[in-house]
């Protein structure tokens, strides 16, 4: 029983990290129908900025985190102004291609500034685990669980009730109609990217504290894309629950199937389940069901 519980709890907290990262994809998709391939690089910007402040300038961690969030915020706005503005009313696929280009360009710039070696954070989260009954959980994961749940609440409310959130959804649904209703698509895009950059930045900082920061961190950005797809690309609860679901699935299949099948099932199982679920619900677990009949 302890074995099972430990696996489930570990799966949940690791899934929370996936959820945080997947949230960035969902936010941008939800408000602009675009899949952002530069999500991984946005992670890196947050992680590197925070690392520089903490490790090089010895800024207290919370302050460093706040500054990094501001940097991400302005980066998001800058990306909109420099890259995306010319794509307003252009096909979505063009924007997606632009994010691919953005990803390469950003990776290059980041490597010039921070090089490719692994940067390690000084110990910020105490390494002693939190013991709940028979189960041990590391603190940094526990914090990410709290943060991702908090974000779930904040963003669900934001999209449901705030004017900005509603305007974002309207823009995603039909840009031209939104423009003609007097919604400033420029502002919406800027806000979207700013928020997504901030979410990615926070994710990057947490990941950096788990495993150090180097350019390969950005790959995690892409590996969680299945999480977002599983949950439904336009659903915030979907991203969070999708993340937790994949985390638990990985952990359980690692614990129970790996010994039977000789290892490596942990990495594959989520994808098998993903395919099965998408066969039954092609729009993801919580995605918006759009069916056009002809």
């Amino acid at each position, binding site marked *: 029983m302890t074995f099972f519980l430990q696996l489930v709890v570990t799966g949940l907290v690791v899934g929370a990290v996936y959820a945080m990262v997947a949230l960035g994809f969902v936010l941008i998709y939800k408000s602009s129908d675009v899949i952002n391939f530069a999500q991984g690089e946005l992670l890196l910007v947050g992680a590197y900025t925070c690392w520089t402040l903490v490790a090089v300038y010895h800024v207290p961690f919370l302050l460093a985190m706040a500054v990094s969030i501001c940097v991400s915020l302005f980066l998001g706005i800058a990306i909109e102004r420099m890259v995306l503005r010319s794509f307003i009313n252009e096909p979505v696929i063009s924007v997606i291609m632009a994010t691919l280009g953005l990803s390469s360009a950003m990776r290059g710039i980041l*490597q010039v500034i921070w090089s490719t070696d*692994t940067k390690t954070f000084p110990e910020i989260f105490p390494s002693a*685990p939190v013991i709940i009954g028979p189960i041990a959980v590391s603190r940094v994961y526990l914090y990410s669980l709290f943060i991702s749940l908090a974000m779930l609440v904040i963003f669900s409310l934001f999209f449901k009730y705030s004017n900005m959130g509603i305007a974002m959804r309207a823009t995603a649904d039909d840009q031209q109609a939104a423009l003609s209703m007097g919604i400033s698509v420029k502002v919406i895009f800027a806000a979207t990217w700013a928020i997504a950059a901030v979410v990615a930045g926070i994710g990057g900082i947490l990941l950096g504290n788990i495993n150090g920061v180097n350019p*390969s961190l950005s790959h995690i950005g892409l590996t969680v894309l299945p999480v977002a797809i599983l949950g439904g690309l336009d659903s915030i609860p979907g991203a969070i629950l999708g993340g937790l679901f994949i985390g638990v699935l990985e952990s359980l299949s690692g614990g129970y199937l790996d010994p039977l099948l000789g290892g490596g099932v942990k990495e594959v199982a989520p994808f098998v389940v993903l395919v099965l679920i998408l066969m039954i619900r092609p729009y993801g677990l919580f995605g918006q069901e759009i069916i056009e009949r002809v």
Partner: protein
Amino acid sequence: MFHRLCWLAVLTSLLLVISLAAGCGSSENVREPVKLGGIFDITGATGDVGKPYAEGVQAYVKWINENGGINGRTVQLVDIDYAYKIPQAVEAYKKLVTQEKVPAILGWGTGDTEAMVPFITKDRIPYISGSLSENLLTVENHPYNFMVAASYSDQARVLLRWIKDNAAEENPKVALIYNDTGFGRSPITDAEAFAEKIGVEIVDKEIVDLKALDATSQLLNIQKAGADYAIIQETSNATATILKDAKRLGLDIQFLGLNWTADEISLKLAGEAAEGYIGVVPFAFPFEDVPGMKDVREGFALMGKKPEELTQKHIQGWLSAMIMLEGYKRAGENITGENIKKGLETLNEFTSGDLGAPVSFSASSHRGSSKVKLYQVKNGQWQPITDWIGYQ
């Protein structure tokens, strides 16, 4: 328009004059430099360790040029960043061999080194790689590959032998943790065969991905299997994940790891959890005062690098370049791939001032050494617990 053309003409003629003048200056009585090729990963997936390796090579070449070069000729390093992508490595190889006409190459990854084998054999290009995969050691099939340190299989054998000799139990129980790549799988079969031979029981094998954020399920299974020791074949990041998770779960298992798990990065990432961890160290750490380190510090000073900025991967690059260029030296006046190979094959207990184990090559074996040192993390520092040891 006319003005622009004028300017263009003036600029071009200036450039021509300058290049002519430069050409005249350098051709006077200076012997042609010898070339050395490099295919490195500086910006790719393994750039974190590939870059210091490349810098080690660059530093050695700089240092040897400051100290008289090779048989009086300067060495020109032509290196290309292949970003850990095999097609780009092959492209870099073609460029180095056909355009630059380098007689020998220093390479990097397991996959790309193996992809290069048919080319280097055909073109007769001696090749030293960062990869220590046992596969590269069959001389009949890999006549131009040379290995400067113990292969992954030999490293695993040394660890198993050490466990056998130091365990309280008659048949110690060992688990193997590796990643599902060519690099990760490389020593597994050899390790299992050797374990059986010497009476060590392999009770479990677990796969942990190189980028894994968590290894709880694998570690719990190792615990269930009753292992007292676990041997890790990963890179620094996954190693730190494993050590941290093991500490969190309170496992009573002695962890040991191969060379890519035992460096400054895994130590920093794992923090307290690394205490007591034992690693295979085929190349000296820069903080050690071994005889060869004086030259290393001089060489990196030429690159503007301070001793405290160096890592063990810098030493690996330095040592690889040193051994390859020793082959050049022994090739004599006519530096061709074949002669370098013959030169390298005369190396007998070649010592690098203790930067690595003494290296010997012969026509029938390109296994430079099967010896390594074991280090243990004590008070947050890597400290040697053995001298150069083998598994015999």
